[in-house]
């Protein structure tokens, strides 16, 4: 890192003592970025934007929220009715969680299609998966806070999964609850952790970016830049492109916040939690549904729990499961089809996750679960060996020039 020359005296003075501006310079203005990134590459910055919205709205919500079983529900309604623009804060936070997940899901599938997890970006990929896991935990605990029927019963069902662990299962569940049922101690610790985890996520995002700036961005062609003609500085090219993305994102997001704020929610969560009344249909938030389907596809409780966690853990091995040397799906004629099939399979799992476990939903869920693992554990390793990839372009500039001509 050669220090850039700063003209401003104050900036120079500060930078000689702590190189804030040098770091900023290296990671924005002069950070060389492939010039051919498409709009699927916008979703990383959008996810970060969503995280910032969550933390900002969350901190103000926490100033007005009461973490006690006898007051939590009413305190959220007080936010909705009596706190100035409280309804806006709460709807931003509520819908923000869904949009955060939408961004991250697009971001992950972008990586799956373009092989972004392959060398030298394995650790970058792992950090992303850790962020995803921490998000799931955060959103799960956040959903418990308003203390509605789904909060309570969702928490009960999910924490109960740990009782499937042999020997110590029930002990773990009691320990998680802080008692013998989901109750005030549970709500309190979930609030505490719900406040903490987003900052853990923030730290992970920082590491994610350090790894990114070390290995540099991948690109739709999946070949590394060969020289300066293949890259452009991040600023102003990608800052403006990301800002445009933020504008489009906000248009959609705000559309939901202002006109359909409860679209992603469950009506049951507007009924105060009642341990005596089980809702007829306990469904988790939509972003968990594929894993909920995998959980229920296995007839055995412990098996289901293992499959559910395994479904995420197996993604950590992806850089080695996918044996193809070619990164981008664009040059893999057979993989391409399997990718879309896999995506459809994940949607199918999500749909099944929202359905009752009965009738035809059971075999469909089992088939979809089978395919999820079959794709990752069998198809990907074999494809790399059997498939004949298309010829790769000589450089990033080469095909661009050709397309233009």
């Amino acid at each position, binding site marked *: 890192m050669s220090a850039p020359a700063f003209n401003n005296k104050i900036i120079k003075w500060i930078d000689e003592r702590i190189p804030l501006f040098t770091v900023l310079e290296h990671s924005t203005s002069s950070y060389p970025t492939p010039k051919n990134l498409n709009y699927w590459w916008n979703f990383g910055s959008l996810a970060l934007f969503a995280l910032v919205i969550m933390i900002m709205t969350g901190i103000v919500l926490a100033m007005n929220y009461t973490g006690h079983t006898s007051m939590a529900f009413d305190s959220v309604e007080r936010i909705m009715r009596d706190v100035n623009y409280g309804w806006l804060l709460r709807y931003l936070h509520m819908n923000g969680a869904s949009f955060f997940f939408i961004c991250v899901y697009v971001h992950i599938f972008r990586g799956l299609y373009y092989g972004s997890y392959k060398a030298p970006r394995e650790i970058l990929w792992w950090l992303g998966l850790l962020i995803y896991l921490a998000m799931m935990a955060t959103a799960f605990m956040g959903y418990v806070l308003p203390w509605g029927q789904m909060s309570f019963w969702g928490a009960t069902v999910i924490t109960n999964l740990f009782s499937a662990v042999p020997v110590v299962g029930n002990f773990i569940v009691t320990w998680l609850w802080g008692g013998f049922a989901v109750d005030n101690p549970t709500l309190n610790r979930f609030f505490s952790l719900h406040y903490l985890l987003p900052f853990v996520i923030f730290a992970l995002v920082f590491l994610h970016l350090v790894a990114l700036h070390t290995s540099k961005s991948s690109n739709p062609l999946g070949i590394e830049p060969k020289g300066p003609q293949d890259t452009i500085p991040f600023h102003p090219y990608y800052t*403006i492109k990301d800002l445009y993305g933020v504008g489009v994102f906000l248009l959609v997001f705000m559309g939901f916040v202002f006109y359909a704020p409860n679209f992603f929610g469950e009506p049951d969560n*507007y009924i105060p939690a009642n341990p005596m009344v089980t809702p007829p*249909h*306990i469904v988790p938030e939509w972003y968990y549904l594929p894993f909920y389907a995998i959980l229920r596809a296995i007839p055995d409780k412990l098996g289901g729990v293992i499959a559910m966690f395994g479904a995420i853990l197996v993604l950590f091995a992806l850089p080695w499961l996918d044996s193809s040397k070619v990164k981008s799906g664009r040059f893999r004629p057979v993989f391409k089809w399997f990718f879309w099939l896999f995506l459809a399979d994940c949607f199918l799992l999500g749909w099944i996750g929202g359905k009752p476990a009965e009738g035809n939903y059971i075999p469909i869920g089992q088939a979809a679960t089978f395919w999820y693992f079959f794709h990752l554990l069998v198809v990907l390793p074999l494809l790399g060996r059997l498939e004949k990839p298309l010829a790769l372009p000589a450089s990033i500039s080469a095909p661009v020039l050709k397309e233009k001509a």
Partner: protein
Amino acid sequence: MLRSVITSAALALALGASPALASGGAHLDKQAWSWDGVFGSYDKAQLKRGYQVFHDVCSNCHGLKLVAYRNLKEIGLSEEEAKAVAAERETKDGPNDEGDMFNRPGKLSDRYISPFANDQAARVANNGALPPDLSLMTKARVGGPDYVYSLLMGFADAPEGFKLGDGMNYNKVFPGNQIAMAPQISDDLVTYADGTKATADQLTKDVVSFLNWAAEPELEVRKSMGLKTMIFLLVLTALFYALKRKIWKDVH
């Protein structure tokens, strides 16, 4: 307790029914509400009429504890009218300077005082069934206001062979088709001060509108702020796009 929670949770996990089934599976009678759509807003006169129905009929059994008496001024009650309504019921307050708790009439700053002291008292008076608080009713059911409308209009004679429980009433949309609440709405149930004809349909629409306001008092502010926000964002995004085009012009 622990065991029953676990088993019921496991049961729900295994047997969960879809939301459509949960609402009885019946077809809801979709209404055109004044607040539908991007430009929708409440009809103040309708809210006031609906409040009259709620006050005269529903509030004898149902609470509305998230709404404060002062909020009633937002739908057109005068300060005096709102104060008078508040004073109709008593609430416990204290301790006073002598250290005693005492009952006093409700004030504008109080939340709507529920008709029964507690759930048990409500059940005793209602044949064992609990009339739920209506503050969030239109948000707490699949179908929202259309569900509540269909429920209130959905009473009918039980079909042949349907086993109706003791004190239960047949209803087309309530889950399981039998509800402990008797039919509440009938033509000319109340006499409207503004001269509107009080048909069953009108009464129901009015009271459901009032309940929707009770559940979403922020709706009008939300929609008008939404419109301004969307226009602002459209302009901003268009500017970003133009700038993006300009900056990227030379990249090939």
